[in-house]
């Protein structure tokens, strides 16, 4: 499920921002040299047992989405677009363990924070105009859930 939601979020942003690279952040990843681009990074998940005998579990999947914009205006506009896209649009869930990848449903994402990162003079220009979104995707599933 981790891979499915990560992939689905990345693909959702790629669809919403055609032509803007969306980077799946993993250990050792290289970020593009040209802005704008968007990053999707896995954060800590938490589990909650919601029925006796562990028949039903709710996992909150969390991601940090980074927007690296070319200038202040682009940052403000894309920030609002990403926010709206994640809050108001249902995100297509893709099954990624079977080839070809196929749509199997939808899910909602919750944006819990949108935080601009201040730039310091000692930093490179590539570190300017950054915003990070914290996104939560709660998912309830049972012992026999396939995906």
């Amino acid at each position, binding site marked *: 499920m981790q891979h499915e939601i990560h992939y689905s979020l990345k693909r959702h942003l790629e669809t919403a921002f055609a032509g803007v690279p969306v980077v799946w952040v993993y250990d050792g990843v290289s970020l593009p040299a040209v802005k704008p681009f968007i990053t999707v990074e896995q*954060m800590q998940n938490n589990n909650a047992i919601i029925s006796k005998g562990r028949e039903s579990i709710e996992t909150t999947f969390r991601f940090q989405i980074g927007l690296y914009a070319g200038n202040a205006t682009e940052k403000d506009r894309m920030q609002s677009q990403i926010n709206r896209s994640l809050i108001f649009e249902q995100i297509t869930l893709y099954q990624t363990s079977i080839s070809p990848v196929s749509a199997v449903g939808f899910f909602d994402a919750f944006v819990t924070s949108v935080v601009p990162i201040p730039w310091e003079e000692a930093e490179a220009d590539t570190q300017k105009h950054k915003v990070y979104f914290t996104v939560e995707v709660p998912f309830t599933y049972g012992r026999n859930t396939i995906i």
Partner: protein
Amino acid sequence: MKFSASVIGIDKVLRKLDRQLGADAIADIDKITEAYARKMAAESAEMAPVKDGLLKNSIASSPQQSDEDIHVWEYGSNLPYAVKQEFTHPSRKAFIRNAVWNNRDKYSKAVLKRISKG
């Protein structure tokens, strides 16, 4: 730029419950809120990146009751680089958020348990 997390006691609900639960219950819930704010601050401080210890110490000593609402407790750091470390540190990012995520459900359950007691 101050960066902080707020542990918000169920303010509006508390006011409604005040009539039914009484002042003792409200005081107990405020104590639970304070305890969890202090717990989260301690855990965040422990998870924070350490170079000279300033960030860690600023978080550990930060929990305080909000000036605007007595049912709200806040913690965080007033250091200018705290927010950058929270979101971009290569190995210790999310030291504030992880503590909140680890305690959010437990805090809610503790408050609900006290309300259920009447």
